[in-house]
């Protein structure tokens, strides 16, 4: 049983080919397993409890990232939309949880083939005996799905109809995320006969904690959303020049970034789903990349804009974190620093490019942070392996990684364009002009975020 566990979850899988072999091994392990000695049984049971404790705590930390997203997004946008952003963050997780429970988990981890699950585990009905990690695995994966869902709200802030956003939330957690998630991670959880690893996993695609599976997925959906919606009123001048629409509460946003950094210690080490020595290593690489990301973004912003910009530096932290997520278990410490630093630089360039060249209005930089840096991190891990196998080839791994990251772009961006356009031409995606000017808080919710405060609204 411990064998099953340590194989099924890529413990210390420094390199790719193990992954491909995993499912077969599981099958093999099932037959080989002789009666364990009492000591082995006790050890398995205890280690399993250790794993449960750590994975549960990690799941709680990942959940807490919802608070971080809410704070970052609210802080980086205008006061008149703050209630709306918060409602979106509360509701995408709530609706997402229910959608995940009903169908999402089944599609991602249920019985099926290498493209699609869904053959079991609907509404957690027949789930109980699935694995030794059991329900802990369910809750851990549930908060991951919630993370993918919530990324989008920031890019669509300040102009999206609330009902449309609710519809979107159900679809991403119920279908879009679990389907592509199955391709890379479906093999993490196997209840034997009828279960199948996903085709990307089989291809040796490495994405330990989800730079691509979670972050790029959310990021490319966000891109589709921002494009379909169009920019906020006043974001681009008559000649197409970009205007600044400053966030209303940078201390709140920074608190959000710290909460996300904190939560990422659940996201990355928790993806080990085991209380073993590797979690410390992963925590270290995660922290190094975040720190290097902040430094990279600060320096780049300083060079480009003349001063060390606060919101860019905060984005740099997130960029470093997103980028290291794929390879946090397998890159060297120096590699983590380089990946984080490069992601920090990249996020500044990407924000500028998307804003000023593509003229897509992404108020919080979700596309740059999660989409671009997620893809970057997925590819970069090839070159910084800590202890590669003898026959490891960075270039051939890069091909696999490109395939994975590219597939995600096509899938998530494609689904997003279809979904958001469907919504646009049915229930409508964008709120009315008047509502947008007065603020979504009053228009959509009849509420005010800061009652009594004198707020100067000329934008």
């Amino acid at each position, binding site marked *: 049983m411990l064998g099953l566990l340590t194989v099924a979850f890529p413990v210390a899988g420094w390199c790719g080919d193990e992954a491909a072999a995993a499912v077969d091994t599981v099958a093999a392990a099932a037959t080989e397993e002789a009666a364990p000695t009492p000591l082995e049984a006790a050890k398995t049971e205890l280690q399993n409890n250790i794993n449960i404790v750590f994975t549960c705590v990690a799941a709680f930390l990942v959940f807490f990232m919802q608070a971080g997203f809410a704070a970052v997004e609210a802080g980086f946008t205008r006061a008149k939309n703050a209630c709306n952003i918060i409602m979106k963050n509360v509701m995408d997780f709530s609706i997402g949880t229910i959608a995940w429970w009903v169908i999402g988990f089944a599609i991602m981890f249920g019985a099926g083939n290498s493209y699609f699950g869904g053959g079991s585990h609907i509404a957690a009905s027949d789930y109980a005996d699935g694995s030794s990690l059991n329900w802990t695995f369910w809750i851990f994966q549930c908060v991951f799905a919630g993370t993918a869902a919530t990324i989008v709200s920031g890019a669509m802030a300040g102009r999206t109809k609330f009902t449309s956003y609710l519809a979107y939330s159900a679809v991403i957690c119920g279908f879009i995320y679990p389907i592509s998630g199955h391709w890379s991670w479906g093999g993490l959880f196997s209840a034997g006969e009828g279960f199948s690893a996903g085709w990307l996993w089989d291809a040796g695609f490495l994405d330990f904690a989800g730079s691509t599976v979670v972050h790029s997925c959310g990021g490319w959906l966000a891109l589709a959303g921002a494009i379909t919606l169009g920019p906020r009123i006043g974001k681009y001048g008559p000649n197409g020049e970009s205007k600044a629409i400053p966030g209303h509460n940078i201390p709140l946003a920074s608190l959000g970034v710290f909460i996300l950094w904190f939560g990422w210690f659940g996201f990355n080490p928790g993806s080990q789903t085991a209380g073993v020595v590797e979690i410390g290593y992963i925590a270290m690489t995660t922290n190094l990349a975040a720190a290097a990301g902040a430094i990279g973004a600060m320096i780049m912003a300083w060079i480009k804009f003349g001063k060390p910009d606060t919101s860019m530096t905060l984005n740099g932290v997130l960029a470093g974190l997103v980028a290291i997520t794929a390879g946090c278990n397998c890159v060297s410490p120096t590699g983590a620093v380089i990946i984080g630093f490069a992601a920090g630089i990249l996020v500044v360039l990407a924000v500028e490019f998307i804003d000023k060249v593509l003229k897509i209005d992404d108020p919080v930089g979700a596309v740059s942070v999660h989409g671009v840096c997620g893809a970057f991190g997925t590819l970069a891990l090839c070159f910084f392996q800590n202890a590669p196998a003898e026959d490891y080839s960075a270039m051939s791994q890069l091909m696999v990684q490109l395939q994975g990251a590219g597939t995600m772009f096509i899938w998530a961006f494609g689904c997003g364009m279809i979904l958001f356009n469907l919504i646009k031409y049915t229930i409508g995606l964008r709120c009315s002009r008047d509502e947008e*000017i007065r603020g979504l808080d009053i228009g959509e919710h009849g509420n005010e975020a800061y009652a009594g405060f004198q707020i*100067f609204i*000329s934008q």
Partner: protein
Amino acid sequence: MKLITAYIQPEKLNDVKQELYKAEIHKMSVTNALGCGQQKGYHESYRGVDMEVNLLKKLRIEIAVNEEFVKKTIDAIVAGARTGNIGDGKIFVTSLDECYRIRTGETGKDAIG
């Protein structure tokens, strides 16, 4: 010398500023205000209790000008602020007895610009 006080819709500030610049009026002071008039308020609710909000957000602009600029200024404000909808705002003109520039001690017409 006249003191011109205008209440406008907040989102019109940039347009008004631009019109004033075109008319070569570069000085003004702006305050946050709440106004009620013909424009209907809206309803907020909080925890199920309805609240009618009839003090709406406005900006108050104050500009001191010499006589020859009065019309230009008013025209510029109107050009920038008018949408034709209720709530566009009001302009009030009062006489200014004296004006001082704190920095130099200049007074009257010289101090205004």
